[in-house]
């Protein structure tokens, strides 16, 4: 239980080869077997890019520019493509952000799930049977008929169920769910979150929940990693993070959460916007928007142990001005 399934060390992603622009600036992240971790950050903070880097699915011009991704003892960042391929879908699987585009529109949904099994050597008969089983398990009605449907005949929620069935077909050790519900209606969101959480417990796989909404994952994860501008700025157990955030950005994120009546405190919005990868910020990336910024922040803050977790900020909470 305590041995890490995934150990990411100093992982950086850059765009372009000649004049590379760094997008993710040396991420550290550890997951133990069966652990659930939330990765939280505003749009553009590099969450998807990091997750795709873990799967080695970055498309041109993005590429891993440094760092290690140790998965069950192997460094994925250094693995040859055929070996990486045999891990994808079998050991590490992903549920994507937009179910409207993540399925092949020309292929029957059942075939797309079956394919996930076939390419890893499951024979045709077994794959077909398992596909029906999976459809039933993820709550798609009438599997015998619906496996023959094409994606456009399905609603967004049903498509996401197909993607989930595909990801879980081989009971991977690590599941990456990259904002699996942002593209869906609110009611459907809850169903899908519930479904993945249930399956996660059932299969005991380590899971990374990516979201830009802390409220969504609070109940689902043990630990939260907060990203800002391509950096990890805080990493702490969820209770600790909510009770005593160690980074001003986390504090602002929590303050902007809707209160129990569902309203968002309008003043808690963080003014400004996150930096673009092309904009170089001297020192701490959050400095231009940080209410606690001071001179020392002109130097990049390291991610250091703080209380029960870690944070990258020069100014500890007891020194924060209100």
């Amino acid at each position, binding site marked *: 239980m305590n041995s890490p399934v995934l150990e990411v060390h100093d992982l950086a992603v850059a765009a372009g080869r000649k004049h590379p622009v760094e997008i993710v600036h040396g991420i550290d992240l550890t997951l133990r077997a069966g652990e659930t971790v939330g990765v939280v950050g505003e749009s553009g903070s590099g969450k998807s890019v990091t997750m795709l880097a873990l799967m080695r699915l970055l498309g041109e011009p993005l590429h891993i520019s440094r760092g290690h991704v140790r998965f069950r003892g192997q460094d994925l960042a250094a693995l040859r493509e055929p070996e990486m391929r045999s891990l994808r879908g079998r050991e590490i699987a992903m549920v994507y952000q937009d179910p409207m585009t993540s*399925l092949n529109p020309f*292929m029957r949904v059942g075939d797309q799930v079956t394919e996930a099994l076939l390419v890893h050597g499951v024979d045709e008969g077994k794959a077909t049977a398992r596909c029906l089983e999976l459809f039933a398990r993820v709550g798609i009605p009438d599997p015998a008929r619906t496996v023959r449907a094409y994606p456009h005949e399905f609603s967004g929620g049903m498509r996401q169920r197909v993607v989930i069935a595909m990801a879980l077909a081989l009971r991977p050790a690590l599941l990456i769910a990259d904002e699996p519900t942002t593209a869906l209606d609110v009611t459907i969101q809850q169903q899908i979150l519930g479904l993945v959480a249930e399956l996660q417990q059932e299969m005991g796989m380590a899971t990374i929940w990516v979201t830009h909404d802390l409220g969504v994952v609070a109940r689902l994860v043990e630990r939260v990693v907060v990203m800002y501008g391509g950096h990890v700025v805080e990493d702490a157990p969820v209770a600790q993070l909510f009770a005593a955030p160690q980074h001003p950005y986390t504090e602002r994120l929590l303050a902007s959460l809707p209160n129990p009546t569902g309203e968002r405190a309008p003043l808690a919005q963080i003014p400004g916007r996150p930096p673009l990868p092309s904009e170089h910020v001297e020192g701490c990336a959050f400095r231009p928007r940080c209410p606690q910024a001071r001179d020392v922040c002109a130097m990049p803050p390291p991610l250091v142990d703080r209380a029960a977790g870690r944070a990258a900020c020069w100014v500890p909470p007891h020194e924060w001005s209100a």
Partner: protein
Amino acid sequence: MILRGTLGHPLVRRLLEALFTLAGVAVLVFVMLRAIPGDQITATLGTEAAALTPAQRAALETYYGLDQPLVVQFWTWLGSVLTGNLGASERSGRSVLEMTANSLPITLELAVLSLVVGLVLGVGAAMLSASRPDSARDAAGQAVALAGLSVPAFLLGSALLAVAARFLGYNPNAEQFAPLVADPALNLQQMLMPALVLGFGLAAPIMRTARSALLETRTLDFVRTARGKGVPPRRLQVRHVLRGALVPILTMTGLQFGYLLGGAVVVEQIFSVPGIGRQVLIGIQQKEYAVVQSTVLVIAVTFVLVNLATDLLYRVVDPRVRAT
């Protein structure tokens, strides 16, 4: 309600559209022939028509129906065309229907073979090019495609024939043409060079379209999903990338069918293939107006039908269209 529902169906609409196009084609062919100086009498009798007395001329006009109003003439002509009477060659006396029954299948065979050559070459080259964009391989592929676009069929055809016949002593096309059913081996040999020439011309635009469609499809989310499942490269290229690029490739191929029919006229002439293109050319050379008129109509109808077939193919290729 039911009628409106049926008429609203895209398939029904497409069929009606094709019918209208066909009607338009019929009018056009009819008008074109009336617009050409001289009439059927002049065409039939040649210079002797000048020697006709007004009475003789009137009698002939009545015989050919030329004294009737144009609209009546059109309906009479359309009626006879629809009942399969396409007129006859004045010279040989053979009916155009019979001539077409022989020549059209030959041209269709040539078209199908050329399409196969064009698709295999074009899509194959595109897949090689797209697998390494901007590499030497890509540049070579694109250069060949450019050549295919710029070398006219008559030049390529004549060159091929000259090289094969003179230097290799191989010219199956010098022999009497063998229909496919009579002598498949000789027939296919005789079709080889013409199909290569036409297919090469087709391959170029197909290659360009396919290359950009493949490059675009590669970046789509669903291809990434497939990679995320662990789908190996070959399967990925065929089942996901090529499959996703099929619609634009099909569209381009359908558009090229007009080129194919036009090219057939030239290529059939060079390689002595007695197809429908050659039938038109001979008709023109021998001033056989009935033959030209009816053959042009047949070609136009074929073109409309092929376009219709292409549209129907979309429904097979794209399940999203099938649903509507």
